[in-house]
C-alpha cells in the first residue's frame, strides 16, 4: 500500500527525476572531461538554466512576456557583488562608489541571498500596477520598465560604475558544484511550483482570466507574487553570474541575454519545465557548435560573424509559427511520454 503510493508518486513526478539525473550526468561528464574551456561553458549554461527556470516560472504559468525580468537579474548581480566585495576591493574597482556602499561587506552566500531578496523587493514595490495589464499593453510596459532599470544600471556610476566594467575580482568566486547544485535545487522548485496552489491559480489565469476571477482567483495578486518569486530566482542567478564572470556592466543583463533565454523557452515550449530544459540544451549546444563554425567559415573568405544570432532568430520565428508550444508541445516529458513512444512499437511486433 505504502510502496504503491511511493511508486505512484515517482511515476507522476518521473519528469523532474529524469531532469535531475540528466543534469547530474552532464555535470559528471563535464567534470570528468576536466577541460577549463568546457567547464566554463558548463557553468555558464547552468547559470543560464537558473535564468531560464526563473523565467519559466512566471512566463510559462502566466502566459505574460515579462521583459523586465532580465533587469531584475541585473539588479541581483550588482547588489550581490557590492555586498560580497571588501571595502578595499571596491575602492580599487569602483572608486566613485558612495562610501556607505563601499563599507558594506558580508560573506558570499549571504550576499547572493541579499541580492535575490533586494531584487524581489524592488519588484514588489514597482510591478503591482503592471500586473493588471494583459496582452500587448503588458508586454510594452515590461519593456519600458526594463529600459528604466537598464538606464539606472548603466548610468548610476556611484553604484554600478556606470558604463565602465564592474570588476568583482580576479578569479571566479563560485565554482562548478555550487552552480550545479543551485541549478538543480531551483529546477526542482520550479517544477513543483507549477503544481502548487499558486502555480495552479496562475495557470488558470493564463488560460482564461475571466473564469479564473469568477472562480475566486485574484488574478493580479497571483501574478504579482509569482513575478516576485521569479525575480528572486533570476537575481540569485545574476549573483552567481557576477561572481563567475567577474567583469560585467548593466548591458550584460539586457536584450542579448534576454533573447537567448527567450529562444530557449520558445523552442522548448514555455508551459513545460522539461520543455525549457531541453530547449536550453538544444540552444546551448547549437550556439556552441555554430560559434566553432563561424571562424572556420570566415577562414574560407566568408564573413560569418553573427550568423549564430541570425540562425537562432530564424529558428524562433519558425517555432512561433509552426510549433507555438515548442518541442514539448506544452506537455511534460516523463515516463508516460516514453510509454506513448513504446506503444506503437509493441503493436507492430
Amino acid at each position, binding site marked *: 500500500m505504502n510502496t504503491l503510493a511511493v511508486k505512484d508518486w515517482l511515476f507522476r513526478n518521473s519528469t523532474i527525476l529524469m531532469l535531475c539525473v540528466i543534469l547530474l550526468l552532464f555535470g559528471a561528464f563535464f567534470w570528468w572531461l576536466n577541460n577549463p574551456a568546457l567547464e566554463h561553458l558548463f557553468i555558464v549554461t547552468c547559470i543560464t538554466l537558473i535564468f531560464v527556470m526563473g523565467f519559466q516560472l512566471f512566463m510559462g504559468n502566466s502566459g505574460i512576456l515579462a521583459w523586465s525580468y532580465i533587469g531584475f537579474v541585473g539588479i541581483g548581480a550588482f547588489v550581490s557583488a557590492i555586498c560580497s566585495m571588501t571595502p578595499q576591493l571596491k575602492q580599487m574597482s569602483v572608486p566613485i562608489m558612495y562610501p556607505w556602499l563601499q563599507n558594506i561587506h558580508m560573506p558570499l552566500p549571504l550576499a547572493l541571498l541579499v541580492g535575490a531578496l533586494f531584487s524581489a523587493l524592488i519588484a514588489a514595490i514597482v510591478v503591482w500596477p503592471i500586473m493588471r495589464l494583459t496582452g500587448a499593453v503588458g508586454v510594452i510596459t515590461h519593456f519600458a520598465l526594463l529600459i528604466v532599470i537598464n538606464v539606472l544600471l548603466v548610468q548610476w556610476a556611484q553604484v554600478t560604475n556606470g558604463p565602465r566594467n564592474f570588476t568583482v575580482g580576479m578569479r571566479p568566486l563560485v565554482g562548478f558544484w555550487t552552480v550545479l547544485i543551485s541549478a538543480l535545487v531551483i529546477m526542482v522548485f520550479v517544477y513543483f511550483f507549477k503544481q502548487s*496552489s499558486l502555480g495552479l491559480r496562475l495557470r488558470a489565469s493564463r488560460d*482564461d482570466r475571466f473564469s479564473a*476571477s469568477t472562480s475566486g482567483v485574484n488574478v493580479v495578486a497571483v501574478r504579482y507574487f509569482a513575478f516576485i518569486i521569479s525575480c528572486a530566482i533570476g537575481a540569485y542567478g545574476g549573483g552567481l553570474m557576477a561572481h563567475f564572470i567577474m567583469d560585467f556592466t548593466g548591458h550584460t543583463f539586457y536584450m542579448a541575454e534576454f533573447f537567448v533565454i527567450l529562444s530557449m523557452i520558445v523552442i522548448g515550449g514555455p508551459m513545460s519545465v522539461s520543455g525549457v530544459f531541453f530547449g536550453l540544451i538544444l540552444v546551448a549546444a547549437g550556439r556552441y557548435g555554430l560559434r566553432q563554425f563561424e571562424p572556420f567559415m570566415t577562414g574560407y573568405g566568408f564573413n560569418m560573424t553573427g550568423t549564430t544570432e541570425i540562425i537562432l532568430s530564424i529558428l524562433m520565428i519558425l517555432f512561433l509559427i509552426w510549433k507555438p508550444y515548442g518541442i514539448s508541445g506544452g506537455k511534460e516529458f516523463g515516463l508516460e511520454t516514453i510509454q506513448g513512444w513504446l506503444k506503437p512499437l509493441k503493436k507492430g511486433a
Partner: protein
Amino acid sequence: MSESSKLVVQGLGKSFEGLRAVDDVSFELVQGEILGLIGPNGSGKTTAINLITGLLSKTDGTVIIDGVDISAYPAHKIARAGLARTYQTIRLFKELTVRENVEVGAVGMGISRRNAAVTADRLLEELGIADQSDKLAKSLTFGDARRLEIARALATDPKFLLLDEPAAGLNEAETDALLAYLRPLPAEKGIGILVVDHDMRLMMNLCDELIVLNYGKIISKGTPAQVSADPDVVEAYLGSEARGGDEL
C-alpha cells in the same frame, strides 16, 4: 452557510454607449429556489449575469448577499462571497486537466490543493465525467465541457449558482440529464440557482419562477404557467421571431 441565504439585485443597469442593455432589473433569489431568466436574443440576460458577477462594471444598481452589499467588489471577491457562474460561450482552462479545472474553483476559495483534489474527484463523479479527469479540458466534447463548467462552479461551494445557457448545444438526451441533475440540486446543496436558457421545455420543468427580459427591462415575472400565458411575453417572443428568431 447561513439558515436561508438571499441574493438581492436592485435597480441593476448597464449602458453601452447609448444602448441600454440592462435597465432597472430587480429580483430576489433565495436558497432552495430555481429562478429562470428568459428573453429574446440581445435582451440583456448575459449582461445581467456579467454585472452581478463583477465582470462588467455596473452603471446602476446594487447586489446584496445576506445583507452584505457586494456591488463594488471585484470579481474574485464576489466569487468568495458565494456567487458562482458558468458561461454561455464555454470558458474553461483549456491547457489544464479536467480535474485541475475543478480544483481551481476550490483552491480559489483558499482550500489546499490536497483537499481541492478530493472535492474535484467527488464533483467529477457527480457530473459523470470522472473518466475524463486526466484529459486536457480542450479535448472534451461539447456536452462534457458544459458539465465541467458546472463542476468548476460548484467547487467554489457557492451559495448561488448562475448558469448562462447550460443546455445550449446539448441534444435532447443531454438536456434531460442536465434537468435531472439540476432539479434536486438546490435542496441537496442548499443553494439558489439563477438559470438562463432558450430551451422552454427545460425552463418550464426546471424553474420555480421565471423572469422575462426584453430590451433590458423586466416585462413579466411569475410561475412558468403565469409567464407563458402573459400576452406581453407572447408579444416579445413573436416580435423576436419576426426579427429572425432564437437560434439556440
